[in-house]
């Protein structure tokens, strides 16, 4: 046994005897540092389990993976999920002053603002009778597997801070995102792929790369962006002309020489770097296979619609072959979850429909409806939905008032609305067929069972076996958590 292996084995034994909690208040935080395995060196050379090795949660977990479908820009809940007949009746009338007195708007001019009804037709779906507008027939067909929440509210009013709030639990910079917290707390089941993956479609979002940052946590916990075609991960391909066999030989040389250095100076960082190269190599093998869809049946490909043409129109959301890209990304998300990836962030922008709401919303909904439904059904038929939490979310909602920017007379869009919005979830131990919470009759405020973004996160973490108050990380003297200083688990959602 080489000194490196001896060292690791010995430390492993020490490790199993004592818990490694002295630097952190929280069990998992400490466990993130522990769980060390010295495994058989069959793949050539010593292996160390790093910060991404699987960790035991606080209590029994229902969910193992999360696919967060982030609809950046704020889709209109009034035109998709939350029908408001009264609003349609009051179309064209001003809101009572009492309601707008202490309210901020981005673009709406209060004096001349009037309510704007929805042109959408709503329909009930499934045994549960959950309602969706005519723009989401495919998602509607999954109704009995969905938990629809109509009573979300957030603290943030503008896109980038709002998107940070949804991803980090607070609308400020420098904090870890949801995927970072989950991989920090639980590690990843995948030995060949990153634990936290990001897939983007449509145009760039307001938050850009800050939406998958690891904040003050190490970059180990940052989202790794996958592309749906070509080189799946940045710098994954060897330089042109360098064959895989020489790559392996080169890495062998690297491991041997780094290993010899370790034997001399005994710095554990070297062992960690050796392992990072081995993981990189495994990613080089696994990632192209991941994005290669040739093994999928035509029926599956058709179900997701990976060969669909872009629907007509498409202003804000369109970039390249948007429909194809989003459909592929949904299918890739399933393939990632199958391979043990912990958190997939599927970002699609933009839903920021200050004008041309009907046309733009139709375009975007057509792009996302079929693939999302296919993803949920595909997970279900493969028996993966129970342990995969699919979340459809966004940063805030849109106003029941029409947007009358610059004194515009023809309102064709809606403004930012942090006071109420809708999201839905499927699987991962969340109840299906339930519609939770209620907004008032015009969709302005939450009337029943308000859900703060921190509550959403607390409940999501609960399904992963994590007590949101105990998953903490100390930074600058403060113990931070995904749920900031709030968060209540919503028991009603749990299976």
């Amino acid at each position, binding site marked *: 046994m080489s000194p490196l292996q001896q060292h690791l084995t010995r430390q492993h034994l020490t490790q199993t005897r004592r818990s490694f909690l002295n630097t952190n208040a929280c069990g998992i935080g400490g466990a*993130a540092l522990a769980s060390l395995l010295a495994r058989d060196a069959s793949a050539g050379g010593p292996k160390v389990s790093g910060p991404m090795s699987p960790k035991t949660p606080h209590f029994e977990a229902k969910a193992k993976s999360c696919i967060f479908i982030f609809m950046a820009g704020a889709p209109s809940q009034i035109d998709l999920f939350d029908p408001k007949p009264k609003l349609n009746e009051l179309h064209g009338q001003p809101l009572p002053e009492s309601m707008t007195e202490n309210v901020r708007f981005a673009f709406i001019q209060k004096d001349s603002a009037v309510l704007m009804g929805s042109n959408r037709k709503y329909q009930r779906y499934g045994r549960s009778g959950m309602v969706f507008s005519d723009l989401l027939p495919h998602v509607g067909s999954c109704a009995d597997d969905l938990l629809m929440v109509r009573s979300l509210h957030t603290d943030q009013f503008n896109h980038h801070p709002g998107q940070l709030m949804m991803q980090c639990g607070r609308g400020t910079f420098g904090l870890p995102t949801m995927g970072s917290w989950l991989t920090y707390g639980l590690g990843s089941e995948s030995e060949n792929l990153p634990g936290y993956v990001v897939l983007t479609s449509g145009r760039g979002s307001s938050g850009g790369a800050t939406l998958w940052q690891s904040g003050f946590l*190490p970059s180990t916990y940052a989202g790794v962006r996958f592309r749906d075609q070509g080189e799946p991960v940045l*710098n994954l391909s*060897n330089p042109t002309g360098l064959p895989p066999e020489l790559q392996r030989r080169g890495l062998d*040389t*690297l491991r041997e*020489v780094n290993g010899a250095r370790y034997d001399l*100076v005994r710095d554990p960082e070297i062992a960690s770097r050796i392992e990072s190269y081995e*993981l990189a190599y495994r990613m080089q093998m696994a990632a192209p296979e991941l994005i290669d869809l040739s093994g999928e049946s035509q029926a599956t490909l058709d179900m997701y619609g990976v060969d669909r043409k872009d629907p007509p129109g498409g202003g804000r959301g369109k970039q390249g072959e948007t429909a194809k890209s989003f459909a592929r990304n949904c299918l890739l998300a399933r393939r990632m979850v199958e391979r043990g990836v912990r958190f997939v962030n599927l970002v699609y922008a933009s839903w920021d429909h200050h004008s041309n709401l009907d046309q733009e919303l139709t375009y975007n909904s057509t792009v996302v409806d079929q693939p999302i439904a296919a993803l949920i059904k595909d997970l279900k038929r493969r028996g993966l939905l129970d342990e995969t939490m699919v979340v459809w979310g966004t940063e805030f909602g849109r106003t029941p008032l029409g947007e009358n920017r610059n004194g515009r007379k023809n309102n064709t869009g809606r*403004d930012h609305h942090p006071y109420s919005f809708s999201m839905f979830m499927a699987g991962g131990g969340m109840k299906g067929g339930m519609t939770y919470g209620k907004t008032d009759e015009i969709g302005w405020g939450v009337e029943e069972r308000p859900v703060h973004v921190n509550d959403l996160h607390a409940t999501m973490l609960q399904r992963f076996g994590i007590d949101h108050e105990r998953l903490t990380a100390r930074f600058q003297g403060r113990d931070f958590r995904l749920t900031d200083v709030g968060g209540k688990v919503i028991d009603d959602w749990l299976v």
Partner: protein
Amino acid sequence: MRPSYISLMTLAIVSCVCIPAESTEPSDADSLFAPVRQVFAERCFACHGPDVQESDLRLDERESATEPLDSGMTAIVPGDVDASELIARVTSSDESDRMPPEGDPLSAESIGLIKEWISKSAPYVQHWAYTDLDTAEPPDVDDETWVKNPIDRFVLAKLQSHGLTPSPRADRATLIKRLHYDLVGLPPTAEQAARFVQSDDPNAYETLVDSLLNSPHFGERWGRHWLDKARYADSDGYEKDRPRMNAWRYRDWVINAINDDMPMDRFSIEQLAGDLLANPTADQRLATAFHRQTLTNTEGGTDQEQFRVDAVFDRTETTGTVWLGLTIGCARCHSHKYDEISQDEYYRLFAFFNNGDEANMQVPTSDAAMRKYESQLADHERRRGELKQEIEQAALGSASALETWEKELVSRMASLAEVQSHDLVIESADASGGPSLERQKDNSFVVTGENPDVTEYSITGTLSLKQPMTGLRIDALVDDSLPDKGPGRAKNGNFVLAEIELEIDGKPVTFAAGRASFAQKNFQASNAVDGDGKTGWAVSPQLGKSHHATFWLSEPADLRDGTRLALRLRQSYGGQHTLGKFRMRAVTGDELEQIAPKKIRAIVETDPSKRTRKQSQDLQDHFLQTVYTPTKSLRAQLDKLTKQSPKPPLMDVRVIADRSNRRATKVLDRGDFLSPRDEVVEGGLGVLSPLQIRGDKPDRLDLARWLMDDANPLPSRVLANHVWAHLFGEGIVRTVNDFGVRGQPPTHPSLLDWLAAEYRTLGWSRKQFIKLIVMSATYQQSSRHREELSEIDAENRLLARQNRFRVPAEIVRDLCLSVSGLLSDKVGGPSVFPPLPADVASLSYANNFKWETSKGADRFRRGMYTFFKRTSPHPNLIAFDCPDSNTTNVARRNSNTPLQALTVLNNEVYFEASQALAARVLAGDASTDRQRVEDLLRICLVREASSFELDRFLTLLEHSRNWFTAHHSEAAELASRHQPEGFDRVEAAAWISVTRIALNLDEFITRE
């Protein structure tokens, strides 16, 4: 660096930590009180602390905590546990009586600690960070031979108290690499290393230190440390994230200040309040850009006051983190739970920044450019002076000519021919770039069809005139077919007639002047005959109306029967600023204005005896300028020269400037800008020394001076610790960003205080302070792990050895480019755009940013010059833990990730470095494979390779060579750039596959 997150592997593997994390040299009172305070902070202060005192009980101050309360009880009776009501309440079995009222009861352990503390007379001890610096002399030690300077006494004394000895000095190869990496962030060349290793000069080490401290690259390396603290970036942040093309000017300020060894107190004061110094220089005002690195939200529909307040929060909190080492941000919403910072105090600090507004100022683009300008200007003024003298000479004897001309003028004015316009007989009319010219009945043209950005209309025709042609008239006409009726085809109906060219009988004619019925500001008609295609005649805002201009010929032209005229109307301004309907006519006769300007005509009409001196002078000037041949061209030369006077090299920069109209600062409830409460005035922190003020009211300059004041111990501790952390990988206070009660206490408290005092004694010289540390035996120790230490001090808190750590993101790039010979050694200047995958920039909002890859040497600048776009930073930087620059960062973390491996293995820039490095190795003197591998490893590792290492690399070389011998086309692909001379592609490719692995060695990107 934060031990909780850095080096997770380190912590995971080395598990046995025997040196307690809490404290190493606590006094009894300290160790009694610290845990009690922690319990109070977590469970009691919310109701019995600085903000709220329920039942009049306040527990954070001894005096009030030990006073009898209204109820007659006393919460804490020092020395008497049983009499202390606090104990009775926290141990009460009656839930309605028990404290704290919410949550679990206090643990038995916590209660035990409180009891012990009360029994030992309940001492309240000030947190170590706020106390005065310990002025104790460095301790005596048994072994004087190891000691190189006082630092070593502190370290050795502590080691000896634990029965340990320091590590031996690192070998010379390691030392030169360590110093190069630490001080300039660039590797020594193999030659430099060899010279140093072989030198028998006893001062070789010190000489090396001095030369590195004097290198211009020192300012880059240590400037980058500071830029982390300044959260420097090249864009606004938030959704729109607009580029800040002038941000680099502040980066240059930092580099220069550090290279000039600007003392740390001045360095701090100028950045926090340079604008408030007496008669501040441009550089001192520029320094305030430190606090202009805050983010700017230009997203539509934002409340600007919200984001202004956010920026002021950031300035307040960044100041707190960088100079005070405190997380004062907690007190934004409520008084700090752990540290003694009340919410009021937070807003008193906030008030200093609340009155510094965001401003712009102009500064020289660089000192060099300014010096060049100044010398050019002097040269220019000299040439102008010479020309003026020449004109004076030439003007001598012009008096009689003036008299003659004046008479002629009077007679011409009297016999003026009337101005008339004459249509041409059009022969052809064409437009370049696609539009059609449709001729109308009135001889005008309407332009239809394509609407290109630029165009040129060519018209030919004939004309015969009885009188000489004196000018050309262009009518710009409205038409319903044009945008807003025209007369132009730009979106708003404007046009720019850039240049008119006219040939009569095939000969070009020149124009003397152009005058229009109306001309847009800066778009005079004369611009259409100035020979400059970028200027021209335009008519905004008088759009939707017809206009005309006459362009007067320099010499009248006779048009006999059928004389051909060829006219070109050049419209090269761009943006579809072209004429939509126009007509051209020949002009005969003269305008009075054409003979002489109104002012001159008035003078001529005045009797010479009645003219004022100024009038006579004006008349003479006009004559010399426009008429008198000996001076006319000289005057024109002078005018031209004057126009060409060099422009000062100035650029806008973002700075802070105090507003004149003082803004009142109010405490914001829970930090919400919409919920102001009581007004507060500027002030410091109560736990530190009092703030001295210069005038009636404290200002930012008072704050900056207070921070750096001798009486204020905290900032010097914090700043000394920063420097230490950069040289050891860990601070003496390991929580570099937290000196508060939740942070870790110093591993060597007396050493920290001695260093803090010494930093001041050295006149706050950063260079001398760094020299002091790197000259110590402590710094020069080997970093090898020692078996016996892994049991006692795995985290190396006692400093029985140096630390090994990876270089930061920018330096990874610098090292690779440097050893491959590609690195540009230019210091400072605008940010650059090294290659970036196309779909990375597109991640930013709506794909609103174009990354134009730099060319030439700018492709190979140091990593710190890479343009930093906040919402889409360069992945090569982010992969290696470069901070995102949205918030201040005083200590980077180091992670090991597969993305880092892929970056150095495969990214374009690193691969190109492998190619160039292969060429470099092959171009060397070595003649065998073995010697070449030796060279390669010497270049990368700054030491001689072991036979094992040589063997492994030679084996790789052999495999590679065999493979490429059988695969020529792949060899050609791999060796696509930097082909070594005298070697074929197979050989080049084989070596590239070897150099690529050398660049990925852990040792290469690690300090040792």
